[in-house]
């Protein structure tokens, strides 16, 4: 008897699409959801710990008999019968008939299998093993040629878990062995045994596993220890030859990670050990093992899901090895719905949104004979492990980790114990605003440039934006998922888009892109919008497809929208158009009636393009043509349906009137950039016409644009527009002027050359007495390219004791003359520095000399001798430092005495002492040349001797005597 509709009944039983939650590496393949399940949020195991398998009564093929095949299946199953797991996987008997394409067929809606093979017979036959002798069953199920021996790596063994009950238990599975994949060669049968061993693991509910992944990737050379701990449930084989079982050591012995997954699904506990296995070889799963739980978080405290966490063993003095693993977010909801598609569907009811679950993983059995040094460390899920190779049934692409790998150390872990560790990734993103980006009823205004950024955080958060669109334009919304460095990524947020007429509620009323990253460029979700007949305000949402939100879910949004084209008419010979809108960028292409135009200038809000002739564009006279802006990188487009018409409008003529011969950086050129628009007759000026002037490339600003690089000017009564040009950086500068309506234009290239600049201070260095207070006027001269640099700001700086005033701008001769003031200047060298153009500088020094180094000499007047009645001339003293530099500002004390004339001394005895007729003391300060002038204290009409002594500093002294003879 055959069972028609086994699948339908199975689905009715379990609820089709009642998808279990995330399976996890080194853990369960399925976990139940939270809403529809009798036993919610649980790892899904077989309904019995003894799921007997029943084999096909036929031969596997002409060379492998039924008995040989049964022996091979038994050997593959035996690997799963281990002491630390309750599972007992043994043959229960044989199927009622040999299964082939003769009794497997499609009845128009579903596959029909013999009744005892079908899922509805699960209580009698939990696992059916089919010997597909000629491959016809596989061909029927998977398509013609699927059983071909060239595909035996994939179809040697085909497994199917075809019934899971709402109580969160696997009911039934099917294993189809491809008879075309084995022959006379013994290795072929061993290869099938290996594939079947792994398939048994899958139907028992084990997920693929990522442990010592370098064995697979070769990223680092694996050690023998790492190879020995590479799990049987690794996702993808290494192909070192024709038989992959030869590429793994001990291919029929489970590894620590496989045992850990088994212990999670089929644990041996005190109760079932005593109840069911008393006297058997089973032992507690916790024996010689530790039970570890890890939790990884962002700095905000939010869990970080979809990390592969491995338990690493640190033997003393030996290389580390990963033993077991788990994926974070083991029981966390995989999909909570979003505003675009609504709440989670029945089929997406997986896991639960309990906060701690997002970053948590449980690894129930890591081997530990007595006490061992273990640590858990997080790593990324290999991006190849998706789809059939997923190490968990994550509905979303694996999320790239944020921050540094997290380590949770369990030193001296004692067998039989369990530990829980929690760690935050300190260098992961820590910003989770959760607001400021609108709500459905009050959306935020999108940026006028068409470009802006946002973030989807925390879980369930969406961004709501508004935009105004003119009639007749198609437009595109794009969202690029970004990583924490701002680079596009496919492995963070999975943005989806929905559009409403502003004010609408519910699900999107205008358009939606319910699946992320539909564009060809990595990381980009795109929604192309049709044109409307009236201007409209739209509200649109950016949300994660799976309802997730994290601090590292950043995005860049874009509205690519061309709202107008000018002029309305272009000459049949072609011309220039200006497209206004938002979201443009360098590299965008313009297409007119399907024919490429040449983009001249592009900015976020404007594109100037040169359009082809009417003939080239294949357009019709007077009929509006389509103008499209395309972003070839993303495939985004915006289209103005009636952009312009070709007509008999004769293009005006643009004549270059003047242009700077060259530019100097930071200097406004003397000659303006001036263009005149003339009618086609070449004589009549076009008055009042808008002309866009712009710096197409290079660095310069335009005076008429208020210092901007582009603006629109209007021609004067002579058809002229003009602007000064200021260089802003060395190199070629392309200046453009284009008639906005007519398209006529002029373009010139001038060179901003590196100027030769020189600055100097002519004033000689000054030496001044320490402690003096004085001032000087110094002179700075600046030139550029040999000419006086006029009107250039000078920035002055001075060292301690000095200050500068005035001289902040060079005059018409390129000079600046500031006043430098010294106030009780301390001993030592002082500096005054003047800088122009930021970097061209010159300095002037003032040396303040300590009083111990002042010296004084008589410059003039020391040798004079006069007769009584004739006046002595002034005596000039010079103050210097020890080197001879004239010293200004030095205080000089002068002492004078006038002695009476005594004549010549007697030949015998002492000279007669002359009486002092007068004496005096004065003080003065050396001038800018270091000079001091002294007038001798002479008594009129008397013969006398005038004695002068001068003292400066602590060691400067000089004296002279001036005779006034009888």
């Amino acid at each position, binding site marked *: 008897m055959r069972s028609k509709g086994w699948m339908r009944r199975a689905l009715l039983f379990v609820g*089709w699409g009642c998808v279990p939650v995330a399976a996890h590496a080194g853990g369960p393949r399925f976990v139940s959801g939270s809403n529809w399940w009798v036993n919610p949020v649980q790892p899904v195991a077989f309904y019995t710990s003894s799921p007997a398998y029943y084999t096909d009564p036929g031969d596997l093929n002409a060379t492998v008999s039924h008995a040989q095949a049964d022996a091979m299946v038994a050997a593959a199953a035996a690997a799963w019968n281990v002491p630390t797991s309750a599972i007992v996987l043994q043959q229960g008997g044989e199927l009622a008939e040999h299964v082939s394409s003769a009794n497997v067929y499609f009845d128009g809606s579903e596959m029909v299998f013999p009744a005892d093979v079908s899922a509805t017979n699960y209580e009698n036959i939990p696992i059916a093993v089919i010997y597909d002798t000629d491959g016809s069953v596989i061909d029927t*199920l998977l*398509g*013609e040629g699927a059983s071909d021996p060239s595909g035996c790596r994939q179809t040697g063994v085909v497994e199917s878990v075809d019934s*899971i009950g709402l109580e969160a238990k696997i009911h039934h599975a099917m294993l189809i062995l491809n008879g075309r994949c084995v022959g006379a060669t013994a290795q072929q049968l061993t290869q099938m045994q290996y594939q079947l061993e792994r398939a048994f693991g899958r139907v028992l509910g084990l997920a693929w596993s990522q442990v010592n992944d370098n064995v697979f990737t070769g990223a680092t050379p694996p050690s023998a220890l790492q190879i020995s701990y590479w799990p049987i449930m690794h996702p993808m084989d290494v192909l070192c030859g024709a038989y992959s079982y030869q590429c793994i050591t001990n291919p029929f012995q489970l590894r620590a990670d496989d045992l850990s997954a088994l212990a999670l699904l089929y644990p041996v506990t005190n109760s079932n050990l005593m109840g069911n296995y008393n006297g058997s070889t089973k032992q507690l799963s916790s024996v010689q093992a530790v039970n570890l739980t890890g939790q990884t978080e962002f700095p905000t405290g939010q869990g970080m899901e979809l990390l592969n966490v491995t338990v690493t063993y640190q033997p003393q003095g030996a290389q580390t090895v990963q033993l077991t693993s788990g994926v974070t977010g083991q029981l966390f909801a995989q999909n909570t719905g979003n505003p675009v598609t609504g709440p989670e569907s029945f089929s997406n009811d997986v896991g639960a949104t309990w906060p701690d679950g997002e970053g948590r993983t449980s690894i129930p059995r890591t081997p530990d004979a007595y006490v061992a040094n273990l640590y858990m460390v997080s790593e990324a899920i290999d991006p*190849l492990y998706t789809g059939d190779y997923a190490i968990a049934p994550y509905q979303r692409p694996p999320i790239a980790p944020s921050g540094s790998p997290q380590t949770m150390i369990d030193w001296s872990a004692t067998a039989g114990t369990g530990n829980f560790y929690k760690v935050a990734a300190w260098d992961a993103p820590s910003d989770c605003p959760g607001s400021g980006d609108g709500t459905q009823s009050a959306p935020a205004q999108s940026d006028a440039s068409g470009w802006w950024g946002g973030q989807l955080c925390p879980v369930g958060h969406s961004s709501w934006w508004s935009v105004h669109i003119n009639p007749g334009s198609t437009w595109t919304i794009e969202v690029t998922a970004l990583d924490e460095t701002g680079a596009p990524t496919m492995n963070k947020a999975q943005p989806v888009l929905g559009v409403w007429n502003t004010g609408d509620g519910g699900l999107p009323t205008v358009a939606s892109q319910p699946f992320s990253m539909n564009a060809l460029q990595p990381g980009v979700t795109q929604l192309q919008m049709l044109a409307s007949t009236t201007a409209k305000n739209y509200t649109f949402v950016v949300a994660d497809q799976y309802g997730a939100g994290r601090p590292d879910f950043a995005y860049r949004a874009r509205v690519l929208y061309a709202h107008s084209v000018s002029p309305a008419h272009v000459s049949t010979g072609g011309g220039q158009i200006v497209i206004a809108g938002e979201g443009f960028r360098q590299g965008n292409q313009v297409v007119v009636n399907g024919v490429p135009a040449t983009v001249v200038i592009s900015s976020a809000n404007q594109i100037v393009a040169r359009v082809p002739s009417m003939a080239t564009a294949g357009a019709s006279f007077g009929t509006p043509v389509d103008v499209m802006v395309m972003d070839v990188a993303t495939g985004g487009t915006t289209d103005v349906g009636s952009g312009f018409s070709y007509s008999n409008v004769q293009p005006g003529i643009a004549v270059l009137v003047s242009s700077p011969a060259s530019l100097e950086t930071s200097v406004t050129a003397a000659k303006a950039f001036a263009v005149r628009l003339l009618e086609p007759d070449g004589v009549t000026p076009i008055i009042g016409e808008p002309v866009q002037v712009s710096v197409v490339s290079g660095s310069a600003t335009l005076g008429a644009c208020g210092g901007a690089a582009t603006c629109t000017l209007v021609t004067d009564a002579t058809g002229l527009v003009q602007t000064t040009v200021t260089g802003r950086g060395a190199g070629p500068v392309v200046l453009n002027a284009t008639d906005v309506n007519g398209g006529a234009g002029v373009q010139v290239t001038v060179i901003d050359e590196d100027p030769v600049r020189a600055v100097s201070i002519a004033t000689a260095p000054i030496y001044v007495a320490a402690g003096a207070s004085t001032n000087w006027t110094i002179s700075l001269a600046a030139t550029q390219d040999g000419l006086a640099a006029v009107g250039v700001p000078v920035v002055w700086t001075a060292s301690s004791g000095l200050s500068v005033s005035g001289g902040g701008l060079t005059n018409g001769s390129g000079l600046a003359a500031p006043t430098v003031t010294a106030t009780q200047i301390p001993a030592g060298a002082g500096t005054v520095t003047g800088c122009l153009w930021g970097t061209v500088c010159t300095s002037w020094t003032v040396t303040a000399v300590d009083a111990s180094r002042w010296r004084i000499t008589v410059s003039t007047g020391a040798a004079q001798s006069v007769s009584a009645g004739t006046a002595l001339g002034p005596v000039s003293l010079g103050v210097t430092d020890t080197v001879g530099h004239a010293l200004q500002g030095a205080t000089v004390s002068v002492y004078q005495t006038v002695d009476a004339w005594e004549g010549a001394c007697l030949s015998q005895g002492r000279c007669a002492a002359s009486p002092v007729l007068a004496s005096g003391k004065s003080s003065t300060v050396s001038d800018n040349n270091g000079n001091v002038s002294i007038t001798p204290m002479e008594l009129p009409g008397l013969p006398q001797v005038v004695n002068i002594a001068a003292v400066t500093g602590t060691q400067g002294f000089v004296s002279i005597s001036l005779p006034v003879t009888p």
Partner: protein
Amino acid sequence: MSRWLIWLLWPAIAAGAQQAVAGPDASVTAALENLSKRAATVFVGQVVGIRRDAGVVEIQFRVDTPVVGQTGGSYTLREWAGMWPMGQVRYRIGEHALVFLHGTSSAGLSSVVDGSEGMVPVMADGKGTLLLDVRRLSTRVERPIGEPLADVSDGAIALKDALPVVQSRGAVIKRPVRRPLPPGTTPILSTWREVMRLPATPIVEQVPDAQ
């Protein structure tokens, strides 16, 4: 040949008819040849819908570039629902790929050749050049255990370079140039690995049970 002789020799004939288990491919190009030789239908397209029914899962593709056995427009792949165990996502809507499909069986069913490997991701670089992400195909290439996957740092080839190989089913001898994947794709040989100094371990311990 007489019937009795055929009967007598049948085991040997049958054994000879058995082919060797598929070995690894010699290169990524050889992998493309391999897939194309075994495919009845090949196209470049995008998954635009997945509909689960009781016994069949229908995957709707928009066909952008027909390559073998397909003229364009759209294509509906009908897969046995037994290949869609609950919770497992075989394909994602929105996915762009070069798709290799088996011929349709008498039951009206088919599948992707070699599972996920016959669905080669297509993406564009910054200039709009279409690329194939062939990293998964690289895993089909023979290598000693522990040796790095070949050229995964340059995990792409240009679609236009691959199509002649596929269309000719290997008759065209051409080895497409490997290129880097565009920014945004996650590298396999991630450097996001543990870099840590462990504290001293002043304990006497025993080796964990070997498996």
